[in-house]
């Protein structure tokens, strides 16, 4: 598979603070890569480095097998959707969409025609004569997408494009974005801090932490075999439980061979069973009910905390004592010192 985008040992700095540390990433042509991470992890910097809005301090950036590290933004053939959408407030929707074509000397009529077509693709063809000030958040988002689509860039860069939308609209646009990607088959890099968005949208996810790539993998890999406690706890809500392997809880089933060094056991709230006959005793601190689900926050011996997800109908009462149980099959092991995944 040919490469859509390659970052090869890219470092970047803001003033004197290093923001990215030798980031290696490759995105296949037609792939949708989601860059996921908490705020301050350098996600947006990755996009800005690809777009050329931020210089690299080391490493190379290749787009469509072409080294663009020293090219100015306009020569990289990328489209960008900004978190704020960056629509021109004084231009109508159609003028906004056609802007990139018109400054590249596409004849006005042709530019308008293609703008209209792009608007139809993302479903904002009815808004062409309005100005951004007259649009709702979702409509602005569509216009920003149409503006990115109107050219045929080698890479689409989307910087948290859904973060300014309300929850329902975000879910809807998420699905539309995925459908759009499948339809046009473009190479896309999508930045978000929303793990659900990442899991739903991505072909592959790159988890970023403090300017370093923590793990790259399919949503399944990220979910089932997190490479570190950071990935494990960042993806999934509530976060994965972590307990020392020699702590109060012993999972059931065939134990893997454990080495000498201290380890941590991780298990998701879904993996916890509360009504076991034999298990670790725990006290229910509080219970959060969210529709059909309930999250029970439990205290174990020696002050360890565990969250369990149970059906709301069978939730324990606050203050009750329960016995909790986890299977080895649902547990993850990490090195306590480094947080990296333990492979027996």
């Amino acid at each position, binding site marked *: 598979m040919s490469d859509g985008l390659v970052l090869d040992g890219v470092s970047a700095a803001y003033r004197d603070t290093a923001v990215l540390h030798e980031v290696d990433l490759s995105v296949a042509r037609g792939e949708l890569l989601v860059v996921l991470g908490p705020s301050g992890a350098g996600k947006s910097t990755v996009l800005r480095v690809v*777009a*050329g*809005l931020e210089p690299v301090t080391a490493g190379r950036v290749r787009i469509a097998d072409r080294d663009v590290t020293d090219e*100015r*933004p*306009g*020569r*990289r053939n*990328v*489209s*960008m959707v*900004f978190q*704020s959408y*960056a*629509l*021109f*407030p*004084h*231009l109508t929707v159609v003028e906004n969409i056609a*802007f*990139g074509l018109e*400054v*590249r000397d596409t004849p006005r009529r042709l530019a308008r025609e293609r703008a209209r077509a792009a608007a139809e693709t993302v479903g904002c063809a009815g808004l062409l004569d309005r*100005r951004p*000030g*007259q649009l709702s958040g979702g409509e602005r988002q569509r216009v920003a997408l149409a503006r990115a689509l109107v050219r045929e860039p080698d890479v689409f860069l989307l910087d948290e494009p859904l973060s300014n939308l309300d929850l329902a609209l975000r879910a809807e646009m998420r699905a539309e974005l995925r459908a759009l990607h499948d339809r046009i088959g473009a190479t896309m890099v999508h930045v978000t801090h929303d793990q659900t968005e990442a899991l739903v949208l991505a072909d592959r996810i790159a988890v970023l932490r403090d300017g370093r790539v923590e793990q790259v993998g399919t949503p399944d890999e990220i979910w089932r075999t997190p490479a570190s406690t950071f990935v494990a706890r960042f993806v999934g809500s509530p976060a994965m439980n972590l307990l020392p392997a020699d702590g109060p809880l012993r999972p059931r089933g065939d134990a893997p061979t454990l080495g000498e060094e201290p380890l941590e056991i991780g298990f998701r709230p879904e993996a916890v069973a509360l009504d076991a006959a034999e298990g670790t005793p725990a006290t229910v601190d509080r219970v959060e009910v969210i529709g059909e689900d309930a999250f029970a926050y439990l205290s174990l011996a020696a002050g360890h905390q565990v969250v369990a997800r149970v059906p709301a109908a069978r939730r324990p009462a606050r203050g009750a004592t329960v016995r909790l149980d986890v299977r080895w099959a649902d547990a993850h092991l990490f090195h306590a010192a480094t947080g990296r995944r333990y492979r027996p």
Partner: protein
Amino acid sequence: MSAGGAVPGQRAARAARSPDRRSRRQLALMLTPYLVGLVGLVLVPALVTLGLSVTDYDLLRPPTWAGLDNFTALLNDPIFRVALLNSVVFALVAVPLRVLLALGLALLLHRRAPGVGTARTAALLPTAVPEIAYGLLWLWLFNPLYGPINQLLRVGGEHGLTALGRTPPQWLTDPTSARAGIILMSLFTMGETFVVLLAARRALPRDVYEMAAVEDATGWDVFRRITLPLMAPVLALLAVRDAVASLHFTFVPAFVVTDGGPPPYATTYLSLFVYQTGFEYLRYGYAAAATLVMMLLTVAAVLVQWRLIRRYRRFYQV
């Protein structure tokens, strides 16, 4: 912070809806100094001017009724017509140049870079010089023999001519050069306009410019399609404000530097005309009539300004 800020805000809103007697008295008290100034310094003089404009009055004898004689006399007064024309020409030339210069400097100096702070201060400084001192300074700068401007122009030339063999401008004795000189003087006092434009440019969103960079827009495209339209409302307001102010800021240069000359009345502007008519020739009624014409011009400019604001508000519809 936000919770604390909300409460006084709500209280203020409630007070505005149903102002009780106490807060109304407080508001009146706070407005008083401004109202006293407005009435005493603007409204009463304006009314007195209106009254005087239909009289003949020389400070010695009591005013006598003259009806519209002053206004018909103004229409036929060649000096007044020259002054009116001079003022309009000055506004038409100097105001766009001032705004353009301020815009150019603002766009040049809005980024952080070494030396930018000094450059901004330099752009602002002439505006801070007291007007009379500024005028006297230019009297020296304009001096045809030892003034630095003409010395500079004579560099490389012989027998007191420029390098191209032409006579350097006789700033204070040639009518066209004198008019140009007054305009030149006014250009360097655009500091306020510059500061406003600097702030306006810095307030423009950065991502819009990054968007343009990704789309490979040229500098000219960015200026023409983004910066200029986004700053247009501010530019229009500043131009109108400058046009209004230009009726006044021609006064000191013409008074101190050129004294309304050289003949024939090359730099006699409306403001100087009013001053001379009133305080030198003691024709108060006539001067009041000319002042009224000036005020009408100002009102016309303000009306234009108001229409512009309304137009742009509709244009952006935020």
